[in-house]
């Protein structure tokens, strides 16, 4: 067993212990700050020690152990659950109209377009802007490009979230307009070069 193996075993054990500690913490009638903090701290230790053991690979393995432990506890909770008829949540998502409400199909299609298609431009533009910023800071081309590739879908996700969180159409358009701001100087610089 090498030093790496020992560290990785420790990281995985910390992840499992973190899940068990959180299970204990969240089972308390009242919130237990020390137990809560200990649980989260153990999860953080799992990530950090996993990284120290084998970099991203080590962290990935430690996190898989952590999730696996949580699923075992979940399975245990499921097996021990008793038949019940507790009332279900009826929070309305508001996706389809209730009786008498208009369907607003056009509006729904427009929302889909604003979330599923339009953000391709500001998110790609934002990715390019970040890459340009990286180059300005002296990053290598590979690092700048990788940042653009990873940033694009994350920016799209954030834009989609921000658009959907706006209750009125004007707010959605405003979000898209603001998100597009980094695109314009990048586009201009690219076209002029």
């Amino acid at each position, binding site marked *: 067993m090498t030093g790496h193996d020992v560290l990785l075993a420790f990281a995985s054990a910390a992840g499992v212990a973190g899940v068990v500690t959180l299970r204990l913490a969240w089972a308390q009638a009242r919130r237990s700050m020390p137990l809560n903090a200990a649980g989260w701290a153990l999860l953080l230790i799992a990530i950090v020690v996993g990284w120290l053991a084998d970099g991203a690979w080590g962290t990935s393995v430690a*996190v898989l152990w952590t999730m696996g432990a949580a699923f075992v506890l979940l399975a245990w909770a499921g097996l021990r659950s008793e*038949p019940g008829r507790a009332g279900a949540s009826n929070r309305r998502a508001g996706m389809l109209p209730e009786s008498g409400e208009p369907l607003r199909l056009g509006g729904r299609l427009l929302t889909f377009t604003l979330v599923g298609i339009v953000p391709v431009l500001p998110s790609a533009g934002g990715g390019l802007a970040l890459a340009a910023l990286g180059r300005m800071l002296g990053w290598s081309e590979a690092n700048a490009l990788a940042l653009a590739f990873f940033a694009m879908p994350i920016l799209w996700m954030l834009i989609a979230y921000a658009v959907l969180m706006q*209750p009125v159409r004007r707010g959605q358009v405003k979000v898209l307009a603001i998100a597009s701001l980094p695109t314009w100087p990048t586009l201009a610089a690219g076209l002029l070069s």
Partner: protein
Amino acid sequence: MTTAPDASTVKRALWAHAAMGLVAGALLYIVSLTGTIAVFYAELQRVEQGKAPEMTAIAPGAVQRAVEAALNAERGGSTTTHLYVHMPVEELPRTTVTTDTRATHVESDGRLANAEEIGWSDFLVELHYTLNLPALVGISVVGVLGVMMLALSLTGVIAHPRIFRDAFLLRARNQTGPGLADWHNRMSVWSLPFTVAVALTGAVIGLGSITAYAIALLDYGGDIEAVYQPLFGEEGKPDKRHAPAPNVAAALEYMARRYPKVTITYVTLHDPLTRGQEIQVSALHARRLIFGETYRFDAEGRFLGVAGLADGELGQQAAASNYQLHFGSFGGLPVKLAYVLFGMALTAICATGTYIWLGKRRRRGHDEPRLLKAWDAVVWGSPMVLALTLVARFVIGNGAPFAAVFWIGTLLALTIAFAPIAPSHFRRVLQFALVVSCVGAGGLALA
């Protein structure tokens, strides 16, 4: 002080969560389902085509003979632009030579053997990658689905303020709604790192073409290949004048001497039989997420350098780590089994989301049996039809029209959902058909 979001934010996040889940739900379900099965892509190839030469290792001289034989077999047609040799590895102990037009297994002495016939395995991966749409459109659509999955994770956490506090509450035997919601929420919260990892890596892979196109247009004079070079390494300069076959054996012998600890996965020839040809050897490094380091050799098998995926720039290492992290191929069978478990959970999360929404509507007096049956057709029907494509593989053969069978079959199940059949009966029939088709496919695979 509380960190919980206010009520209006929670309500809006729930709407956003439902909106994205309902619009993208069916495709997300199919992508999750196929991704879970495709974890065993290598093993499935062995099931699909049992009769192929297998070996734990192959000598450099034998690889050289196989390459020359494959290039000879191409004579008379246009010369292949690339030639790939899949080297025998633990999960797929086969040597296979692939050119632009054919793929052939190789005997351990380097003689060409039978043709590779893994049409179903490739269909499965294509369904996951592109939904069988034209490549660029399909992979971009799946990339957007990855973005939606990320956004669903974010809105799901915000829409459920008690999602962590209740993270171990699972009323599995409650039949009135909370049971289903508990399954959905608990699996979601505990598989969150996995979901974020596969969704982000999938989105980066899927939307990579669009990002590369934008970068190429603005910064690289429209040359998309040039965008990838700083990340994955460059190819030699093309020189189309004729040349003899490259010395692959020398490159592999060098690898055995200088890098005995790496696992060689592929040998790639760029522009073979031309003066511009180059040999690239891809090799896995133990305990790394990268899909491998690329070792470059000239046509004589002289070492030129590495691409830097293992120890080059951070961006190179990150880009090269995307694929194994997405497909769960970085830690042998234990990691694959973990990916199947969490992949099944993710597939179930996709399925239960719409059931929860339909249940809420029913409890508010909007009973929608046709919508419920349509969702049943997706959840139970699409895996049933997928199993039927495997049956078609063994009954019809490698050339069976898998994509047509899958999509027509799924559409048929959806159409039948609108017939006047009781929902409970419809679901039972689908579940029975799923079991029968899986048993049939499994039986044919073992036969």
